[in-house]
C-alpha cells in the first residue's frame, strides 16, 4: 500500500467546480500552501471552503478569493482581507460564520461518524436561529450537524507513505480533525518518510483517513502577526 502522489497537481486532480473543501490551518499557520497554489493554477471555481479563516489578500485562501474561485466560505473569523470584504458586500461571495468550537466539533463529528453533536455555543444568539435547541440537565444546547466535505486538504509536519501524520506546535489546529472528516483526504507534509519511520505511539492522524500524500515544497509559512519580545 502506498498513498504517495507526485505532488499537489496530482493530489487535487479530481477536484471539480462546485466541490466542498475543508482546508486546514488557523490564520496562515499550518495551511496547505502547495495545494492552495495548485488549486489556483487549476482554476476550479464555485468552491465551498470550510476553513477557520480566509487567509489574507495575497496568501492562503486569499489567493483563491483573488481568482474568484470561492462561492462560499464557512469560517469562524474572516478579517484581514480587503478582497474578501469587497466580494462579500457585492454578493459574489457567501459567508457562513459559525463559532470556532462548533466548526472544530462538526469536523470531528464527521470523522467519528456522528451525524450531529450538541454544543451550548450560540444558544440565545442569532447563531441559534433555525436550529434545534435542546435542554440537558438544565442547560441548553444547539444541535449542529456533522460537515459533509468532498475533500479535506491538510498540512502536516511529517507523514509516512501510509498516510500517518504528525503535526507541529499550533500548526496542528484543525488539520487532524479535517483529515478525519474528508471523503477524500489529501495531506501535504514537510517531510515524507517511509512507513515504519514514525513511532506508532506518537502519530496524530492514523493513515486510514489519508488517501493521498506528498512532500510539499518551498513552504513560506508567512507570519500574520509577528510579535516580538525585547528581553
Amino acid at each position, binding site marked *: 500500500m502506498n498513498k504517495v502522489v507526485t505532488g499537489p497537481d496530482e493530489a487535487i486532480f479530481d477536484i471539480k467546480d462546485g466541490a466542498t473543501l475543508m482546508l486546514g490551518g*488557523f*490564520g*496562515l*499557520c*499550518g495551511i496547505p500552501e502547495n495545494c492552495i497554489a495548485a488549486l489556483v493554477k487549476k482554476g476550479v471555481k464555485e468552491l465551498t471552503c470550510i476553513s*477557520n479563516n480566509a487567509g489574507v489578500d495575497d496568501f492562503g485562501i486569499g489567493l483563491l478569493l483573488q481568482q474568484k474561485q470561492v462561492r462560499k466560505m464557512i*469560517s*469562524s*473569523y*474572516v*478579517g484581514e482581507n480587503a478582497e474578501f*470584504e469587497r466580494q*462579500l*458586500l457585492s454578493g459574489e461571495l457567501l459567508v457562513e*460564520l459559525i*463559532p*470556532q*468550537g*462548533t*466548526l*472544530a*466539533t462538526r*469536523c*470531528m463529528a464527521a470523522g467519528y461518524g456522528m451525524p450531529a453533536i450538541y*454544543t*451550548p*455555543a*450560540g*444558544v*440565545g*444568539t*442569532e*447563531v441559534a436561529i433555525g436550529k434545534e435547541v435542546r435542554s440537558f440537565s438544565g442547560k441548553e444546547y444547539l444541535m449542529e450537524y456533522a460537515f459533509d466535505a468532498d475533500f479535506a486538504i491538510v498540512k502536516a*509536519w511529517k507523514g509516512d507513505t501510509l498516510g500517518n501524520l504528525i*503535526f*507541529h*506546535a*499550533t*500548526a*496542528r*489546529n*484543525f*488539520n*487532524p*480533525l479535517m483529515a478525519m472528516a474528508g471523503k477524500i483526504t489529501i495531506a501535504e507534509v514537510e517531510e515524507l518518510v517511509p512507513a515504519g519511520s514514525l513511532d506508532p505511539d506518537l502519530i*496524530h492522524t492514523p493513515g486510514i483517513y489519508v488517501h493521498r500524500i506528498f512532500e510539499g515544497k518551498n513552504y513560506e*509559512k*508567512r*507570519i*500574520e*502577526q*509577528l*510579535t*516580538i*519580545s*525585547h*528581553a
Partner: protein
Amino acid sequence: MPLTKEQIAQRIASELKHGFYVNLGIGIPTLVANYIPPGVDVILQSENGLLGMGPFPTADKVDPDLINAGKQTITTVKGSVFFDSAVSFGMIRAGKVDLTVLGAMEVSDQGDIANWKIPGKMVKGMGGAMDLVASARNIIVAMMHTNPKGESKLLSQCELPLTGVRCVKKVVTDLAVLDITPDGFLLRERAPGVTVEEIQSKTAGKLVIPAEVPEIVL
C-alpha cells in the same frame, strides 16, 4: 482616577488563584498575563491548541508554527502541550478552564454579553468567543465603562447582537468592579477617587450599591 487598561488587567490578575487554567482574550485581557501575582502559578490556554503559553518570543526564537488565538507569535513554557481545536474547545466546553477573561462591547445586568458584531459594519466573525462564553465556568469581562461616545456599556439589555446569555460573572472596568447577581450589577469596588455617583450615572443597567464600596487596591 479611572484605571488605565493596564490597571484593569492588574485588578483582574488578583482574581487568579494558584493552579488556575486561564484563557485570556484579545486586548485588555492579554495584559493580565503581565500581572500574575508572585507565587501564583497559572497555566494559560490558547484556544487554537495550546496549554502553557509563554511570552512573545525574542526575534531569534520566532516560530511561524507557534501562534496564539490572536495569531501572534508566542512561546511555550515548561510542561506545555499542543492539541487540536476540537480537544481545545472540548476542554473549554467541559468546564476544565477555570477562568476566562474577555473584552466586550456591551454587558447586561443579567450577564449577557455582546462582543462580536455591529450591525452595518463588516462582520469578521465570532471566532471562539461564543464557545468560551457558553461554556466557561467563570467569566470576567474587562472593558471600559463607557464607549467612546460616553454611553454606558453596562446595560439592562444588550442592544448589539449577543455573543452569549447569562454567562458573565464579573465585570472590571476603568471605573469599577461589579459582580453580576440576580439583582443586577453589584458594585463591589470603585476606582480610586471615582465616586459611586459617577459610576451610577454611567451605568445604564440595574446597579446595586452596598453601604460600603471600597476603592480598588492594586
